[in-house]
């Protein structure tokens, strides 16, 4: 057949079809060029991103032990329900809130926050949706696998506080890093990611950097449903360093018992080795259970419990030892006596000042608890003569008191290794405010300040630190809780890209103690007074023990009007001490809130801790006590 012969130009039409076919194939070729050559790298990366996953391997956090190696904080493995962003990034998940709530018993408000938060994160992020998943939770998640591919069950370590409420303020707790914290540049710099567990409060927070390990990861290939197909790389995690604290668990237990059995069950007991500042006991009541924050922060019940901690009027989250500020009352007289000797307001040879049963400033009479004649310093301390100190303070002047504040570093925090320590407030702090409001600093305020009232509000830790000085020849140490961090070995070889160097052991970096200058005679004079408080018929005479001489000072912090029982606004009761008086091994301070006169509540609390100390370290002395009593 000769197509050219056709009237209808058939050859041309066949040609048209052929050209059309080539054009279509050419279009495909051009598109191929665009996808493979022009955008090849872009799509390669996309393919890579959708199949490579980094699954973090959480690093075990360092445990915390007491000074004798008894366990205080540990981690244990638990199952968590986690929520990953990738499957839900682009879809509306508001309809899932109800399902999650019913399926997992998770708080609604928490769910809303969680989903909103994760949607703002990059695709690969994963957050914990529920900790401590129960068997029911696990079954629910697994059976809804295809419906909610974003949910997974993961085995993760969880912080465990075996002693519950005991020393909760010292240990603190852990929790997810807050979105607010994450926004800080210095936090971002360290590579923190949403969902990271960090210390909150206490040693957990202060030493977070060392307790926290370095997480490892698994680099895996996943299929389109996110199921792991094979593993490309594993970088093992480096565990955090174990912390040996200075706490003595046995003494801590004794102190906690004393607080629990006190009248108001509110207060604090601190014990310290005056020779180096190691804190043996730090108890604050009421307390909280750190496990609540760690294990139940996602359930409605747990969240209610936690918000209760914040709204409770008794303030269980407050570490009274370092954050509570109380009028120190007569315990203030000890540093004041040292300062008076330093400044020459009194001398060793002539330290007598008239008591006078009180003092009259202008037309206002401020009384002393008794009439002590014209006592020397030791007797004034032993009997806690207020009249003596009214006149002493007037002699020193407010400048002398401020000098004392500076000498004993009451104008700054003690530097204890815990976060959010409060500084004591003294006339040095208040003077500018008073002068601004009242025009001048009147003598009556100096008089009140002399007995630790009015403008003096001290933290218990600062009182213990200052008073201990008398026992150790003026050496004032920084109180601290860290004894030692244990070393952790390196991960991998030095040349490898994922090498993590070892972490060395280290202890608390002691600064040289501040020396409070005293002559031995001056020191002896003050010490004699403190010895007398317990051993010479002083305000804490009931604490007297055979073969174990305690030096101390009672104090009563005026809450409403001094010495008046006004129901729940009763005075705070103080007792600060160390023993043995002339070669102290241990210093203890107790404060019982709103319990009344110092001697009657704080003194027995301190005694309970001394008993525990003796039982442990000098059992023969304690036996001697019982024989002596009989």
């Amino acid at each position: 057949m000769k197509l050219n012969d056709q009237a209808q130009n058939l050859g041309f039409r066949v040609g048209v079809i052929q050209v059309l076919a080539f054009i279509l194939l050419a279009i495909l070729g051009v598109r191929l060029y665009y996808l493979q050559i022009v955008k090849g790298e872009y799509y390669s990366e996309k393919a890579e991103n959708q199949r490579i996953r980094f699954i973090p391997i959480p690093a075990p956090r360092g445990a915390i032990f007491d000074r004798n190696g008894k366990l205080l904080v540990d981690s244990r493995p638990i199952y968590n329900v986690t929520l990953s962003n990738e499957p839900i990034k682009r879809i509306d998940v508001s309809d899932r809130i109800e399902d999650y709530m019913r399926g997992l018993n998770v708080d609604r408000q928490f769910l809303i926050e969680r989903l909103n938060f994760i949607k703002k994160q990059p695709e690969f992020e994963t957050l914990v949706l529920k900790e401590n998943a129960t068997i029911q939770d696990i079954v629910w998640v697994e059976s809804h696998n295809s419906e909610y591919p974003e949910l997974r069950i993961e085995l993760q370590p969880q912080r465990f506080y075996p002693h519950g409420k005991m020393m909760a303020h010292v240990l603190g707790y852990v929790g997810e890093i807050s979105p607010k914290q994450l926004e800080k540049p210095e936090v971002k710099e360290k590579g923190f990611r949403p969902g990271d567990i960090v210390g909150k409060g206490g040693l957990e927070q202060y030493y977070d950097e060392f307790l926290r390990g370095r997480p490892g990861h698994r680099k895996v290939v996943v299929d389109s449903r996110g199921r792991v197909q094979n593993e490309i790389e594993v970088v093992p995690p480096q565990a955090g360093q174990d912390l040996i604290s200075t706490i003595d668990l046995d003494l801590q237990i004794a102190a906690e018992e004393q607080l629990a059995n006190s009248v108001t069950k509110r207060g604090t007991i601190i014990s310290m080795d005056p020779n180096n500042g190691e804190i043996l006991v730090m108890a604050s009541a009421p307390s909280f259970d750190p496990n609540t924050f760690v294990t139940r922060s996602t359930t409605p019940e747990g969240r209610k419990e936690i918000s209760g901690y914040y709204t409770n009027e008794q303030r269980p989250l407050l570490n009274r030892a370092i954050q509570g500020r109380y009028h120190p009352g007569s315990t203030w007289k000890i540093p004041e006596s040292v300062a008076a000797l330093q400044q020459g307001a009194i001398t060793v040879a002539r330290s007598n000042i008239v008591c006078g049963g009180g003092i009259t400033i202008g037309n206002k009479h401020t009384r002393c608890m008794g009439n002590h004649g014209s006592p020397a310093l030791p007797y004034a301390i032993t009997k806690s003569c207020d009249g003596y100190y009214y006149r002493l303070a007037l002699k020193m002047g407010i400048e002398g008191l401020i000098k004392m504040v500076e000498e004993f570093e009451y104008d700054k925090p003690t530097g204890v290794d815990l976060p959010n320590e409060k500084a004591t407030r003294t006339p040095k702090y208040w003077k500018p405010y008073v002068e601004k409001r009242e025009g001048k600093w009147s003598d009556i305020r100096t008089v009140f300040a002399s007995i630790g009232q009015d403008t003096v509000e001290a933290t218990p830790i600062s009182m213990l630190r200052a008073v201990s000085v008398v026992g150790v020849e003026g050496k004032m140490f920084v109180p601290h809780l860290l004894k030692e961090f244990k070393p952790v070995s390196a991960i991998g070889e030095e040349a490898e890209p994922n090498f993590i160097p070892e972490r060395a052991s280290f202890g608390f970096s002691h600064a040289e103690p501040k020396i409070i200058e005293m002559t031995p005679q001056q020191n002896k004079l003050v010490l004699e007074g403190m010895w007398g408080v317990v051993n010479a018929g002083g305000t804490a005479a009931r604490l007297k023990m055979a073969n174990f001489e305690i030096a101390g000072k009672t104090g009563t912090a005026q809450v409403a009007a001094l010495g008046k029982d006004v129901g729940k606004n009763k005075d705070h009761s103080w007792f600060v001490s160390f023993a043995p008086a002339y070669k102290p091994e241990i210093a203890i301070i107790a404060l019982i809130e709103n319990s009344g006169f110092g001697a009657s509540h704080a003194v027995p609390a301190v005694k309970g801790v001394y008993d525990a100390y003796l039982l442990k370290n000098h059992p023969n002395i304690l036996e001697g006590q019982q024989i002596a009593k009989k």
Partner: protein
Amino acid sequence: MVAIIEKRNFRDFDWLVALLAVAIVCFGVWQIYNAQPETTYWSKQITGLFIALVALIVVATSDYRRIIDAAPFFYGIGLILLILVLVPGIGMRINGQQAWIKLPLVGQFQPSEFVKIPVVLMLAKYFGSRKAGTLRLKEVIVGVGILAVPLALIMFEPDAGQAMTYFPILAVVLFLSAVKIRYVALTIVAGLIFVPLAYYIGVETGKIKGYQQERIKVILDPEAADPRGYGYHTVQSMITVGKGSLTGIKGDTDNSQSVLKFLPEPHTDFIFAVTAENTGFVGCISLLLAYALLLSRLVAGAKQAGDRAGMLVIMAIVGSLTFQIFINVGMTLGFLPVIGVPLPLMSAGLSAVLSTFIAIGFVISIKMRRFVN
């Protein structure tokens, strides 16, 4: 049967076309293996190739004119098959389409693939015997009728993708049967207006389903596709193709898009994406050139055809193949919506390979007998 072929005819056997077709199928077998290395699709395809090759030789060595004469008979058988497939118990339902008949030994087979051939023959018989001169309305109506009956049956399955591949057959036959150029132009203009209009009306009235809309929307904005929705097939296909870059992934088959199941239907509808990932731009362009060469050989055969009917058969096959290649690859490259049309000679499936080889057998037969007149 070989004995009856005259020596001269045997010399005119178009070895190149046959070899090209076999080569493309072999290349396809490799890609099917790449797509699903742990299944037997690739070995089944080799079996299919041998069956198809036998069919090709049988058809090529028979006299196409006698077959065209018998077109109404084959057409009738085709219609019966299309009805049978709709009968519950005989037809098999896969992915919501009742398009397969299960046969012992052979496995399943897809009538809608084969019925194309009787339709081509029927159209060639009708339009090949007409006298020269401008096409009349009555002839057009008959042509449409020949196409409409099997199409209606296919839409009952329903298999819109297969149905679409029938249109170019009629279009080519009418175009080559002296339809006036102005009607051609008119049809194109009307198409440009009515297709978007029909889509709009379809969306408004709900006749076009949500997933179909999604497949079209993703073409316009692939980045906005829901990763769990229908549009994602297109996105994954584009990623797979793009990832191939110049020369394809080398060795890393464990992590290929199809093995990790990111790419759906990798051995059938998306076989070209697998080819792109494994052999890159070089492999894809080579394949497209092979198709171009095959199509040109067919067109050359059409130009030399001994009669008008033979020419129409070849060109209808050319039209159908071109259309399928364009629709399938266009879908893979993300500028056409996802429609279940296999890539000729590449996609796994006995029916598709067999019907394409039978069609090519016709072409060879027609070329061999070009001087008989």
